[in-house]
């Protein structure tokens, strides 16, 4: 575990906390772009040897997670002319506190997992970051009204799962075709969400999910 990857993981945690406390949507998108780039860089500093495939994959990852996907959300935010998330279900200070709490819990879980299986301790910080990112993504998804913040929460959750894959699975990083398929699904998913978002905005004049409550039993 090199110092660089530790620093990158700390930056990821920082971006998670920032996104929980942020109420300006454009800033949130920029934080996600930053997080995407950092998360894609992490495997580079974990592997002992670099191959042609891993370097190519790294570039694709940075392009998609750092530029294409946030770029798409950025365009959507610009189009719908909504700048702020007002009245979140759970307030910003409480969200920040929840984020810190997730770090604490995930440190506990990661420690338990690594002790129980006597795994090498070198990846324990990676595991903590992964669980925190995953939990905070789910939290963001549930605690905000604006549809766009929910998309960002989903994206953050995906980042967490990707980190999990990096932390846990040796094999997944040798199968670039499969990894590329997962990324492509993510990209198309975000694009479709963006299109639906635009349509929600034009027919409801808002992207508030409180308005999406007509269908029920």
């Amino acid at each position, binding site marked *: 575990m090199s110092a660089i990857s530790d620093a990158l993981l700390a930056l990821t945690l920082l971006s998670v906390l920032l996104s929980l406390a942020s109420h300006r949507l454009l800033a949130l998108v920029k934080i996600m772009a930053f997080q995407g780039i950092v998360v894609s860089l992490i495997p580079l500093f974990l592997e002992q040897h670099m191959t042609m495939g891993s370097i190519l994959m790294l570039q694709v990852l940075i392009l998609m997670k750092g530029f294409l996907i946030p770029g798409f959300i950025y365009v959507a935010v610009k189009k719908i002319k909504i700048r702020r998330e007002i009245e979140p279900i759970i307030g910003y200070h409480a969200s920040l506190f929840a984020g810190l709490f997730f770090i604490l819990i995930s440190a506990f879980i990661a420690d338990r997992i690594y002790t129980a299986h006597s795994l090498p301790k070198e990846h324990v910080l990676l595991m903590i970051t992964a669980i925190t990112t995953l939990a905070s993504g789910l939290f963001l998804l549930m605690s905000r009204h604006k549809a766009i913040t929910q998309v960002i929460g*989903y994206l953050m959750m995906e980042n967490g799962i990707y980190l999990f894959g990096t932390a846990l699975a040796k094999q997944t990083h040798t199968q670039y075709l499969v990894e590329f398929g997962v990324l492509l*699904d993510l990209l198309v998913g975000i694009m*479709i969400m963006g299109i639906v978002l635009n349509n929600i905005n034009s027919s409801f004049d808002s992207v508030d999910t409180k308005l*999406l409550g007509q269908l029920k039993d």
Partner: protein
Amino acid sequence: MLEFTCLIPLFTGIIAMFLPVKFGRGILVVTAILHLQITVLAWMGKITPGLPQYFSASPEGLLVLLVASFIFLFISIYAVSYMSETEITSEPIYIGCTLFFLSSMSMVALADHLVVLWIAIEATTLMSAPLIFLHRSKSALEATWKYVLICSVGIALALLGCFFIVLSMDIGNVEVPITFSALGAVATQLDPIWLKAGFIFLVIGYGTKMGLAPMHTWLPDAHSEAPSPASALLSGALLNCAFLGVYRSHRLMYQAGLGDFSSNILIGLGLLSMLIAAIFIFNQTGYKRMLAYSSVENMGIIAFGVGIGGLATYGAMLHLIHHSLIKSSLFLSSGNILLGYGSKLISKTGNMARLFPKTFIAFFAGFAGISGFPPFGIFVSELLIIMGAFQQGRIISVSIFILALILIFAGASRLVMKMSFGAWNNEILIDEKMARVLPSYALLLTSIILCVWLPDSLYQTILSAIATIGGTVHG
């Protein structure tokens, strides 16, 4: 090259997007016929997968592929007539996405690699979202948003489950490809704790897509807001594909000797789905929502049957086939009803028996079929599941199962009677046509025929699909 079942709809879908609508409709039907032919060839064993590290022709996959391909043909014939009656702003997109949807479902049926299966199931969500969103009404937007978000988040958790299973390989020092067939052979060496954790996440993820309660919340909205041919595809083909993910994870658990753990989860979720469907069907106001809750119920029955094991597994596989046939027929009939009355509300329909005699026969027969009356196949499959459960001595589970079936029949029959014979004095908008009734008849007829005469190759395929989890027909 078995992969042609994915590639051909993909290419024709791209072509259909750029062609005028008239050609597009032709392409839809031609692709459906081609797809069925390739599927039949695959059944005869004439073609094999070109990329064996990712795809395989497993018996349960072939079964789901055949069901999807068969009902797709009839739905596409119906869709051609349906689309000429309704105003659809972007019909080429509809045709293209229907074909992409078929392509992604074929990929699910053939996938053997854990993550490729995940990619394919997520792709089915993405490719079917534009179909739900077709009418662009406010409620359609809401349904699409819920569908995409709930299913994507659910399936993202399934990816986590895949990683847990890979971890269980690493801890158990197993070096095999991450495919269901390879893992099945070495299942006992996998780490049981992580395998269990992986299974739970896979069931939550794929169960969301399959419509198992309590993760079913997207299903009634999506099925009722989608145009009827798309609802028929969602209910008849897509839910089976998601079931395939659950089934393969359960089989892996069984092979690892943890079958009891996963069986109990499946039985619990299955019964919960049935009870929730029974509660919500009782006072339902929309007929398409009623059919959607019936799909939740039937997915619950399948999960229950697979969880029980033995004879019930055979019943569950039969149930999968017959539910697809009958439910897609019912959704196609509901499209005629929607065109005729212009409303999805049961209170704004009535007297179908006199106004729409042909649709009425299909709808009423379909309702009898889905409620488990002979001569339709669901009668046999539910009977086998109940017998299987008694053989295993699961008396309490099977009593809840029977209670839920009775409640659902009682609730739904009241609504169907109102639709069929209730008073109705207004004009009807669009009359029924033979082209929109015959596909429903054909699907129902297939269910009757399969109930009386099951082809030997189908029988053998079901047997080999369930043999690995201890399913048998001899109790």
